[in-house]
């Protein structure tokens, strides 16, 4: 049906592309400080992908409290809902800056990292569409969201530009809840942050963040927080002893 010259061209093109792909995968190499060519980079990526496929998914960790007690350093369990991936992140740094609240930075073995201010997510790194920074309803001495009002997420878009998501939030106290994390029982209150905004073409958007806060310990033991449109929701549990 297609003109023979064109279909021949298409065939040739396909053959050429396949050969090129095979060549980039097998026959490219580089050494020295100069930049590698596109074909070499493509070959590297294909090889890495093949290795990844061959290795298959990592075996899930068998976790219990005794295992957790071996680690002096606090850890978080993070589930990325979209991809149903579970990661364990160790505490790297706890610090203060000019703003209220304590900042904690956690990082995983695969070079991804999360940062929280009083238990509220303020940055992601090493993930797609990173949350670069965020303004959160923080108050000194209060874990989790302290009040409603405006909330802003600053995200990096696909074109290396900052994209701001502005939301208006309300906080609801859903009452006390007993929480169990690997054989430990915590008495918490379930706080829900209901945030609304306007998306593209006036579409109403809603973000729900849930926090299970221990008011005595001033700690967020468990939360489900939105980390931006690329990453989606994270389910986070504090595994510290």
């Amino acid at each position, binding site marked *: *049906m*297609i*003109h023979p*010259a064109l279909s021949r061209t298409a065939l040739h*093109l396909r053959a*050429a592309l396949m*050969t*090129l792909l095979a*060549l980039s995968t097998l*026959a*490219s*190499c*580089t*050494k*020295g*400080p*100069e*930049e*590698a*060519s*596109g*074909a*070499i*980079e*493509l*070959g590297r*990526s294909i090889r890495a992908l093949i290795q990844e496929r061959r290795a298959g998914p990592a075996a899930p960790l068998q976790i219990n409290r005794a295992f957790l007690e071996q680690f002096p350093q606090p850890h978080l369990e993070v589930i990325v809902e*979209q991809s149903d991936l579970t990661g364990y992140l160790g505490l*790297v740094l706890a*610090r203060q*800056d*000019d*703003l209220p609240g304590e900042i904690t*930075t956690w990082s995983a073995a695969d*070079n*991804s990292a999360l940062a929280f201010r009083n238990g509220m997510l303020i*940055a992601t790194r*090493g*993930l*797609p569409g990173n949350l*670069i*920074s965020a303004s*959160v309803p923080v108050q000194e001495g209060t874990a989790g969201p302290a009040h409603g009002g405006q909330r802003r997420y*600053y*995200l*990096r878009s*696909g*074109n*290396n*530009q*900052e994209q701001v*998501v502005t939301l208006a939030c309300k906080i609801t106290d859903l009452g006390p809840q007993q929480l169990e994390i690997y054989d430990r029982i915590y008495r918490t209150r379930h706080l829900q942050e209901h945030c609304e905004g306007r*998306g593209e073409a006036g579409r109403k*958007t*809603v*973000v729900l963040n849930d926090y299970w806060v221990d008011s005595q310990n001033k700690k967020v033991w468990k939360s489900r927080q*939105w980390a931006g*449109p690329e990453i*989606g*929701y994270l389910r986070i549990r504090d595994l510290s002893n």
Partner: protein
Amino acid sequence: MTRSFSLTFRIALVTAAFVVFTASLLFNADAAQAWGPEITRNPQNPAPGTDEAAPRFKPLPPPALNFYGTPGIIDTPSAEMLPDGTYAVSYSWFGGQSRYNITFQALPWLSASFRYNGIRNLNLFGFSTYYDRGFDVRARLWQERRWLPEVTMGLQDFAGTGVYAAEYFVATKRFQTPVLSRRSGPGELKSSAGLGWGRLGTHGAIGNIGGVRPSFVGGGTGGQLSYDQWFRGDFAPFGGIEWQPTDRLSLKAEYSTDAYITETQVSDVFERKSALNFGVEYQYSDRTRLGAYYLYGSEIGFSAQFQLNPKHPLTPMVVPAAQPIIPRSHWARTEADWNQNWPASTQQTTVFRDQIAEALKKDGLILEAITFDATEVELRYRNPRYQSDMQAVGRVARIMTAYLPASVETFRITPVRSGLGLSTVTVRRSDLEAQEFAAQASDGINAVTAITAARPLSEDAVFSDELYPAFSYSFAPYTKPSYFDPARPFRIDFGLDLVASYAPAPGWLIGGALRQRLAGNIANTRASNSVLPHVRTDISRYAQYGTTLENLYVTRHWKPGRDLYARATGGIFETMFGGISGELLWKPVNSPLALGVEANYVIQRDYDQRFSFLDYKTFTGHASLYYELGSNYQLQLDAGRYLAGDYGGTFSLDRVFNNGWAVGAFFTLTNVSAADFGEGSFDKGFRFRIPLGWMLGKPNRRGFGLTIRPTQRDGGQRVAVPGRLYGSIREAHRIRLKDQRVRFWE
């Protein structure tokens, strides 16, 4: 008799298949298993707390394209525009006519298209299959409002031989239609109507402006704007509707006023029995759309549409997280920690240098030199990994906070390329400590960062031990395409390149590339018929040899003064030319304007591409003006003498996205007459570049690019010298760095 029976039968069969297919899609719309990957949609009343209800950056699938690759129904246009920046590639076929289209939405209200088409069995103008190229441009006059439809003016195939020449005004209004599927919500009906001239005025004309429009004659040189014909001759009303009952499916119907006179009356390509066309399209994925059609009462057609949005990568970029900054208040608590005597100890500074070089290497960066002072450190580095230079600056700053003694408060970070310091980013360490987790971290650090001209290399700078002299080599495949030979529209050679370079000292480079062709068909390209010196058209003669020396040159880059960059190159530059070349560029770090001059004395290389040369020698050189117009647009104007000895100027306009995507077009006018130039009348073309990082989601500076000329002739051609200055220098200047400030903390 048999023929008509088989035709009726065929139509019945196609109609039946069409109805079954459409019905199955409609009734299956609710089923979870749709054909193809998930597409972006606006769901009805999503539950709060789900991803569907949350804010989203991904746009909805773009509007459907017509057979000419612009938004429209089937063979007629609509008034819609694609999302800004969209790069749409489409293929359509019906009745022996195929069209390859590329459309770029240059501005929200303006788009441009390039088309390559083949008409089988036209048997006119000395070709059995007639191939042609054409350009379209469309401008939106106003947007859709409550009662007002969107209105667009279009010029189709407006230059050149103009086989598809048409002009039109078209209006489109969208209406919501009832919900058919809970999953995708209400449907949409788009209704378009317009008035067409040229091709679109050849059937059912209702009036005439300016008398008879000359009919199409193929085989001329073309290339001239045919503005004397625009909106002239008969005009006719056309229109159509597109109904999207669900978000994957479209049903289309139109009334086309293209009589296909050349194809059906002058020649016999197909039979046009009706002005009505029908089609069904399926949104396979966010980027891919497929369609099947029944056209002009006799022909079956199909189309495939691929729409890439440069702002939305194929794979989202993931960069390994950098170490957090540990504020000095956490570790520098005693007087001794703040001691300022350490720079006096060479042993100390060597340790710092080596630690920093090691950390940079882990991030894919290369330390060039470092200057230590008790309170201030300047670090010069090379960035072979990150497309965004601001991201590299941010990572260098983090590494400096991790390894330098507490007394160092000022960081001066200088990106270096080809031995040239490009700019200096000055940032205070206490600002880094204070801003990392600020609410507006990117704007915060940007406000306190200074970007100034690169400082000259300090005399007491400590150089990296490993860098000079440095030898690099790579062994990698190459491809070399060639387009639009009438016998075979697309030709390609491919094989392997062995590229080696030796950098004896900063700014110096000796480079060379050996090329082994493995297969290809460029060698069969038609011989040149150019009356000018054959500076570019002898590609088939150059393609006869398998093992060639692609280039071999010595180059030096240096800075003769403030804001001045210079380059001198000698040797074999490219496939066809070698010689000597010098370039001087003035580019202040904070200015959108740059001025440059380049002078080359070149000799044409022998066809075997070893060390011998042909007789043709010439001087070629240009004065250039570069200007950043804002919104990622770059203008370049060149004036001077081209390779064939012709004098003239080149106008280029490129849109270079922050993530490295680039789309641009250029044309060159010289004192060569249209007749001497040959097909196309003057040199013009377009180019694009797709960054590898955009495809693979990993930081990378490389990309795949192409420059496509409708015809490759000898007028208005320039020599390709390796290491031209402007492109790499501006990447690390203020405008590009500030545009990408969001990457500083990543």
